[in-house]
């Protein structure tokens, strides 16, 4: 029943975009703003880490509940090259790793900022590329991982008072990211985008043994065309 309720508005929406006059309003763009919802986020890597003959559970590989958002601004400098900046926030919770209980109830929030370099197909006035754009992005990324233990992880006894949970830790990281995807303009000012992104980041923390984390995700988003290339008629 729920799927039927979604199906009809979705069909009407699709037909609206197909038959509306906005179909004609596709102009080469100069500046786009993107908002993405990140889905199917996967932290890759071993669940158990070895260090000095000891085995520790990995923090990042153990999370099973993950979600994220990202915000990106891209400026088109050349026909096939755009550049800009991306800000991303990813949160994860629900840690589980066999019988290990070290990071149970731990939560992380990863905030990063990345200068983006995008290589993409050029705009064409009368073909698939009038609406569509395929792209490849590479970028360094910088940020910090904010770790919170809501439960009691350490118990530190001082002379005067007992210090307990929650513990918090902010660990800076650096790394790289890449993505491949496709954009589809629905109107002159508005469109949707899907991409597959992957990345690896390096960090050091006194709370866990992970020195890096690698991840992959699907980004589903919308974009707004802010400035359009007025000269495209004469190019």
């Amino acid at each position, binding site marked *: 029943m729920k799927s039927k309720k979604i199906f009809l508005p979705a069909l009407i929406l699709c037909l609206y975009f197909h*038959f509306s006059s906005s179909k004609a309003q596709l*102009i080469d763009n100069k500046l786009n703003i993107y908002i993405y919802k990140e889905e199917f986020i996967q932290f890759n890597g071993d669940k158990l880490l070895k260090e000095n003959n000891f085995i520790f559970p990995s923090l990042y590989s153990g999370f099973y509940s993950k979600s994220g958002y990202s915000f990106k601004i891209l400026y088109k400098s050349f026909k096939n090259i755009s550049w800009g900046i991306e800000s991303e926030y990813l949160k994860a919770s629900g840690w589980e790793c066999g019988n290990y209980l070290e990071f149970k109830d731990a939560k992380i929030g990863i905030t990063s900022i990345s200068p983006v370099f995008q290589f993409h197909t050029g705009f064409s006035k009368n073909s698939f590329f009038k609406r569509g754009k395929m792209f490849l992005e590479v970028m360094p990324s910088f940020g910090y991982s904010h770790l919170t233990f809501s439960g009691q992880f350490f118990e530190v006894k001082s002379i005067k008072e007992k210090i307990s949970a929650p513990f918090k830790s902010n660990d800076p990281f650096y790394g790289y990211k890449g993505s491949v995807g496709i954009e589809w303009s629905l109107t002159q*000012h508005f469109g949707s985008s899907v991409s597959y992104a992957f990345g690896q980041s390096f960090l050091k923390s006194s709370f866990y043994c992970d020195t890096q984390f690698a991840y992959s995700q699907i980004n589903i988003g919308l974009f707004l065309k802010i400035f359009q290339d007025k000269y495209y*008629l*004469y190019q």
Partner: protein
Amino acid sequence: MKVLFSSLMFICFIAFGYSQKRSAYSSYPTESKVIYGICFTLNGEALAIADNKTIKVYSTNSKELIAEFKGGHSNQILSVDISKDSTLLVSGGKDSVINIWDINSKNVLQSIKCHKGKITSVKISTDGQYLLYGCTGNFAYLFDLKLRKVIMEFTDHTGTVTSVIFSSDGKFLFTASADKAINIYGVEDYRLLTSLKQHKGWVRDIAINKEGTRFVSCGDDGRTLLWNISDIQNASVEKKSFLPFSWITTVDFKDDNLTYLKGGFNGKIKIICPMANYRVRIRKPVNKVLFKPCEGIFIKAAIATSGKGVILIDSKYLSI
């Protein structure tokens, strides 16, 4: 099941409406589906179409190809014009070349290279003495067709010159530009008489009525302005219309001096008549619209589009 049925009904309803509207249009066979330049002969019996690098002239009655002008351009032609006596045809385009063609022999009489940019608009004066053209390099030029040389360079604009026209009596010339201004010059002394700056974006096109009392302009700000130029020094806006989020790319005046039309990248065309307005939806960006001359009280117009080539519309099939 109900959902599927209602969806199918919805699709059929839209498809039926779409097919009905299609009967108002007829198209000309062109190789390229992206056409920028079109021009009617004075009597409206022929239509010149800039089909990529070639100019094709069709009979408007039989839609047969009458003449073809080939080999003069190495890139897409953006603008064409025919002299009132139908002896000369002028074309200019992305190759920065203006070709003056002899219509009878179909040969290039003269080829002018513009070193300042791509040719965006060409126009022959009513008396056939001058050729006015504008380019992406912010300049407009006045070319004497008898002396065969450029006699004036207009350098007042700070943006691409998008459209150029002569007044009907040939005494004034108008240039529209990406710098949001419309400049009016006197032909005798080439002096800038006035610079009209009412648009808030690129001015894309201008058209003047036969009497020379009004002209209409449009632009990327979505505005269409009807100007009163009875006193050219004190030109004023008589009527304004605004369509948000759309670039109005083309305007034209009908030979009754009252009716005008506008078309935009949203694929919509509006014909503004004294008694009623007509609306047409092409669903492809409209680059140029021209009224077919000598149709009396009837309205026919040729539309150059990005995606559907050139379409001829007849108002008797259109909704008011």
